[in-house]
C-alpha cells in the first residue's frame, strides 16, 4: 500500500486507470512518485510530460502539472517548459516506441543539450497501446503483430544511445527491482542536466502473449533471471551477454545544464535587467 504522502500525488478523481491489471507500468508510476516525494518535490512545481502510448497515459493519474502531448514529441514540449521556467522539476515519461522511434530525434537532441529534464523510458519492447506491433527495442527473433515471423531489425540499446548523445546521467533497472528504480529516478532528479532512466517494463498482454511470458509474474521472473549488473557484465563475453539485461548506472558526469547557459546569456546581454 503506498504511503499517504505518495497517495497525495495521485489524482483519485481520474481513477480507475486504463492499464491492464498486472501491467508493468504501474510499478514505475509508484517508483516515480516515491522518488519525487523523497526528493522533497512539490506537486505545483513538478511537471510530468508524456507522449502517446500506454506508458504515456501516466501523467493523467499524477496530481501535478501534467501534459500528455503527441506521439514521440513530449521532450520537445518539455524543453519549452523548462526553458521558460527553469525552476520547475520536469519528469518526461515515455514508452520505448515513443522515445526511440517517432521521438528518436527529440530524444538525442535533449541528450545533446543536457537540459534539466529526467526522462523515464518505460521499455516493454513493444507498442502496447496499438496492439503489440514491433518497436525499435523488440529483441531479434521476438514476435510481434507486425513481426509475425520474428523481428529481424536490430534493436536499439537506449542507454548507449543516451550516452552517445550526451546525457549526463544514464541508468537502467527492471520492474523486478522497484527500490533500485526509485533510487535511479532520485539520482536522475538530483542530476543538474538531462537524465535518462530506462526501466525495463512488461506488457504481458501484447508482448507476453506472443513470446511465452503470458502472466505478469512470468515477466518479473524473466527479468530476475536475466538481469546482469554492470560490474558482472564487464567480465562477460558478448556471447554470454546475449539476451541479458545489463542493469546499473552507466553515466554520471557533469557538464553545464542548458537553461543555466541560457540564463547566463540573458545576463550577458543585459536581459536580466529588462
Amino acid at each position, binding site marked *: 500500500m503506498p504511503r499517504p504522502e505518495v497517495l497525495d500525488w495521485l*489524482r483519485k*478523481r*481520474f481513477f480507475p486507470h486504463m492499464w491492464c491489471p498486472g501491467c508493468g507500468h504501474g510499478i514505475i508510476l509508484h517508483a516515480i512518485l516515491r522518488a519525487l516525494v523523497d526528493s522533497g518535490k512539490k*506537486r*505545483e*512545481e513538478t*511537471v510530468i510530460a508524456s507522449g502517446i502510448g500506454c506508458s504515456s497515459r501516466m*501523467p*493523467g493519474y499524477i*496530481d*501535478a*502539472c*501534467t*501534459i*500528455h*502531448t*503527441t506521439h514521440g*514529441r513530449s521532450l*520537445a*514540449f*518539455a*524543453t*519549452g*517548459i*523548462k*526553458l*521558460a*521556467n527553469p*525552476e*520547475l522539476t520536469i519528469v518526461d515519461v515515455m514508452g520505448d516506441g515513443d522515445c526511440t522511434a517517432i521521438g528518436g*530525434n*527529440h530524444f538525442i*537532441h535533449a541528450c545533446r543539450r543536457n537540459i534539466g529534464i529526467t526522462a523515464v523510458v518505460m521499455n516493454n519492447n513493444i507498442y502496447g497501446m496499438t496492439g503489440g506491433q514491433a518497436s525499435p527495442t523488440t529483441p531479434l527473433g521476438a514476435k510481434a503483430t507486425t513481426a509475425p515471423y520474428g523481428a529481424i531489425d536490430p534493436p536499439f540499446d537506449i542507454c548507449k544511445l543516451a550516452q552517445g548523445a550526451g546525457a549526463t546521467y544514464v541508468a537502467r533497472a527492471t520492474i523486478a527491482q522497484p527500490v533500485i528504480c526509485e533510487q535511479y529516478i532520485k539520482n536522475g532528479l538530483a542530476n543538474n542536466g538531462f537524465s535518462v532512466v530506462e526501466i525495463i517494463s512488461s506488457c504481458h498482454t501484447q508482448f507476453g502473449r506472443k513470446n511465452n511470458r503470458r502472466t505478469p509474474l512470468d515477466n518479473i521472473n524473466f527479468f530476475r533471471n536475466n538481469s546482469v549488473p554492470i560490474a558482472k557484465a564487464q567480465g562477460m563475453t558478448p556471447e554470454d551477454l546475449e539476451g541479458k539485461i545489463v542493469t546499473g548506472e552507466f553515466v554520471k558526469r557533469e557538464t553545464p545544464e542548458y537553461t543555466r547557459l*541560457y540564463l547566463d*546569456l*540573458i545576463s550577458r*546581454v*543585459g*536581459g*536580466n535587467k*529588462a
Partner: protein
Amino acid sequence: MPRIEFWQGNVSLAYGAIAAGCRFFGGYPITPSSEIAEVMSEELPRVNGRFIQMEDEIAGIAATIGGSVAGYKAMTATSGPGFSLKQENLGLAYMAEIPIVVVDVMRGGPSTGLPTSIAQQDVMQARWGTHGDHATIAYAPSSVQECYEVAIKAFNMAERFRQPVLIMSDEVLGHMREKVVVPEAGDLTLIDRKKPACSPDDFMAYKPDPEDNLPPMASFGDGYRWHITGLTHNEWGFPTNCATEIAFKSARLMDKVNVYRDEIVEYETESVEDAEMIVVAYGSVARTALSAVRQARARNIKVGYFRPVTLWPFPDREIEKLSEKAGKLIVPELNFGQMIHEVERAVHGKAGIIQMSLVNGELFQPSEILGKIEEVA
C-alpha cells in the same frame, strides 16, 4: 513619439510580436521565414525572453506550446514544408486550448517547391491542415507596416480566445523593405490571457466562464495543478468517452470563432460604394490589385477593391452584401483557386466570379489585373 524604421516584412513581424509581449520563440530555419527567427534570437534574450532553435519544425511548435503553458506569449515561424510538419501539434494547441502564434511565410509548393518565390497556396491548409474540426483565425498582411500590426492582433486574439492564431505572410512581403511607423509602446492595446481566480484545488482548466464561454488559463509554475491532453476531454481536462462531454467540448472550440466572428473579421475596401465590379485580393497580390483598381478608376471604370485581412474567419457576409450591387468579382490569386471558393460560397450566386490564377513563382503585374478589369467592364 512614434519611431520610423525601414524594415523587411519578416523583421517588422518579429518586432511587432515583441511589442505584443511575445517572450518565447521556438523554431527551425526555413526560407523565406528565417529572418523572423534571427531577429528573435537576438532580441529575446535582451528582454529576458527565450529563443530556442529546435531540431525540426515539429519540435519548434512543441517547444512554443511548452513556452505558452509555462506562461509566456509564444510564437513560431516557418514556411511551406515546415508548416506541413507543424500541423499535428497545431491540432494539439487547438484541442488543449493553448494560445500561440504560428507564422507561415508562403512560398511555392507542393513539397520543396519554390523556396525563394512567392505563392498563396497554403490558404486552405491554414484552415484545414490539421485533422479534425477546429476554428481557425488567420491574418494575411499586405504591407510591411501591417506585418507589425497583425503580429499584435494575432497575439491579442490568441490570448483572448485561448487558441492558436496564424499569420499567413508571403515571400515578397517577408523580404520587401518599406517604411514602418512604430507606435509608442504605451499606445498599443494588448490583451493577456484570463487567469483563474479560484483556489488551486478548485481549478478546472476547461470550464468556461458563463459570461463569455471561455475558460481561464493557469500557467505551469504559478501554483495551479492541471492536466493538458490532446485527447478529447471534460472540464477537468481528463479524457472522456461521454457523448455529452464530447459534444460540449467540440462545440465550444468552434464557438470561439462562430460566436465572436464579428469581433475577429477584418477587411479593407476602397471605391466599393458605386462599384459595378470588385477585385477581391489579399497579401502581396492585394497591392497589385489596388494599383490596378486605381488606374481603372482613372479611366472611369466603376471598379472597387476588397481585401480580406482575416482569411479565416472569412469576411463572407461583407462580400455578399457588396455583391448585391457589384455584379462581378475578380479574384486574382497565386494558386489554382483557394480563396475563390470562399468568395463563391459568400455570394450565393448573386455575382459572377472571374478567376485569375498565376502559378509561376511571380506576382501579377498591375497591367494584367487592369487588363482583366477592362475586359470584364
